[in-house]
């Protein structure tokens, strides 16, 4: 092995894997989204035809695609703020000098993050049961009549949001907790000397100091929540009345149930474009807000 080429030899195996099993498929995915790749083409490639943007045009005319998009936006729009609020609240509580047993609480609140989505979705399905689930039992104590959480199109998505927030809030909590611990103590001291109340200190010291990290966390969480799949797959199978079909669930059925692989690739690319666009908007807003502070 030549000394000056050593770097290449060390990096080459990993790079080869990434090129063959990630970069090439991403490019091929775009090419496939321009074809009518289906079960016939899967059997014999000579059945494959280039259809240019027809998959995209047809997708945009399908009610189920729009439904899946609306459901996903609902999940992201409600789930991400809720999830972030809970993460920030938990991080602030853990960071408080008044909190006892911090290591225990930190581990307990983080535990749902390392669980398997499928397994905990199975548990939550029973907690959400209409007749004998714990949730309705608890709500009954407040005089609220039983709700058919997973069987009523109005409640299925809220139920999935509650589940996803429970599963995920610990992740951002840990990151925000690290951010809180990095804020210099003397900033709080001087605010206190200036007579700032606890709320003022949060508003004018904590939030601005934490905002770069909050932006990153928000961007990553939005991108993650757009990829909703396992939760509806296990809990509702997209139902009732397709109220929990997400874009990715739609792609899975299109591709691996009906084998319309060209269509599925187009769905994947539209999802990618959407995530990318939302990320850009978030970054621009963060930059503008940064100028205000």
């Amino acid at each position: 092995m030549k000394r000056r080429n050593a770097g290449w030899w060390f990096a080459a195996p990993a790079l080869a894997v990434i090129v063959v099993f990630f970069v090439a498929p991403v490019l091929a995915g775009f090419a496939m989204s321009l074809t009518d790749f289906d079960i016939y083409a899967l059997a014999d490639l000579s059945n494959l035809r280039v259809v240019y943007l027809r998959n995209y045009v047809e997708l945009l005319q399908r009610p189920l695609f729009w439904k899946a998009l609306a459901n996903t936006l609902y999940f992201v729009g409600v789930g991400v703020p809720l999830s972030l609020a809970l993460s920030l609240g938990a991080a602030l509580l853990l960071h408080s000098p008044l909190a006892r047993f911090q290591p225990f609480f930190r581990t307990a609140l983080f535990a749902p993050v390392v669980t398997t989505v499928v397994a905990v979705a199975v548990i939550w399905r029973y907690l959400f049961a209409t007749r004998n689930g714990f949730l309705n039992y608890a709500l009954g104590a407040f005089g609220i009549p039983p709700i058919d959480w997973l069987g009523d199109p109005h409640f299925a998505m809220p139920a999935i949001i509650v589940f996803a927030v429970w599963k995920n809030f610990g992740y951002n909590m840990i990151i925000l907790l690290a951010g809180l611990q990095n804020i210099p103590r003397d900033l709080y001291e001087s605010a206190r000397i200036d007579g700032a109340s606890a709320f003022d200190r949060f508003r004018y010291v904590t939030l601005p100091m934490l905002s770069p990290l909050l932006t990153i966390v928000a961007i990553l969480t939005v991108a993650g929540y757009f990829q909703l799949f396992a939760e509806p797959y296990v809990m509702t199978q997209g139902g009732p009345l397709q109220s929990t079909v997400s874009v990715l669930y739609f792609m899975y059925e299109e591709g691996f149930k009906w084998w319309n692989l060209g269509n599925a690739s187009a769905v994947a690319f539209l999802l990618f474009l959407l995530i990318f666009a939302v990320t850009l908007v978030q970054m621009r807003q963060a930059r503008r807000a940064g100028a205000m502070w």
Partner: protein
Amino acid sequence: MIARPAQLVVNALLVVMAAFALFPLLWMLAASFMTPGESAAYPPPLLPGDPTLANYRELFARAGIGRYLANSVLLAVSVTVCSLVMNVMAGYAFAKLRFAGRERLFRLMLGALVIPGQVALVPLFLLLKHLGLVNTYGGIVVPALASIFGIFLVRQYALSIPDDLLEAARMDGASEWRIFGSIVVPLLRPIIVTLAVFTLLGTWNDFMWPLIVLTDRDLQTLPVALASLAREHVQDNELMMAGSVLTIAPALIVFLVLQRHYIQGLMLGSVKG
């Protein structure tokens, strides 16, 4: 000591949140020891009246869960071991070895981090089908052999290795492999453990890819098998809870034992933006 009201509020809120986080997991554990049908009573029981291992016995004897457990362990361990070797080598190269195009390649890889894996899903499936890897363990292991995130994590940590140390070893006539094996790897130990825990838990919990690639029942992993069991045994609440315990417990135990490393990695990863 008399608690101040503020202290009481903070700790009470923490208790409420911890209860919210842990209740589903504790109830799963309790229900897994209940007799069939017991958990369907109203009001829902918190603890088994007559604890039994029957659900676990049934899972192993009739549902063949031992096989899925073995598949999951085998896949998680092989993906972790193999990908560690490649990612650590590449991460070290990107941090400490000079080669043509290194900086440009690294920037490209960072950019590629924004592409969600789902975009590659369909062609990747066709590629593996072409290679004869669909419905084999290789279908899971081979595409996971290297990851951009893993390389990035190792590189960030490896930047702190002093160049003098490597130069001194080269002066002494050590080969690059020797330097890697006896100097670099020991220094990278903390990040290697972090990445190992990350990969292990990620592979163990993964659902969509094994669902697509492993359709043969004998090859399925625990989460995929559990999802199909859940569709068949909607009424067998206690049985499903036992299955969930078997799926969650190994990951949770690994996390509890190696908690410090896992959380360290999470914080390193979060500053990648």
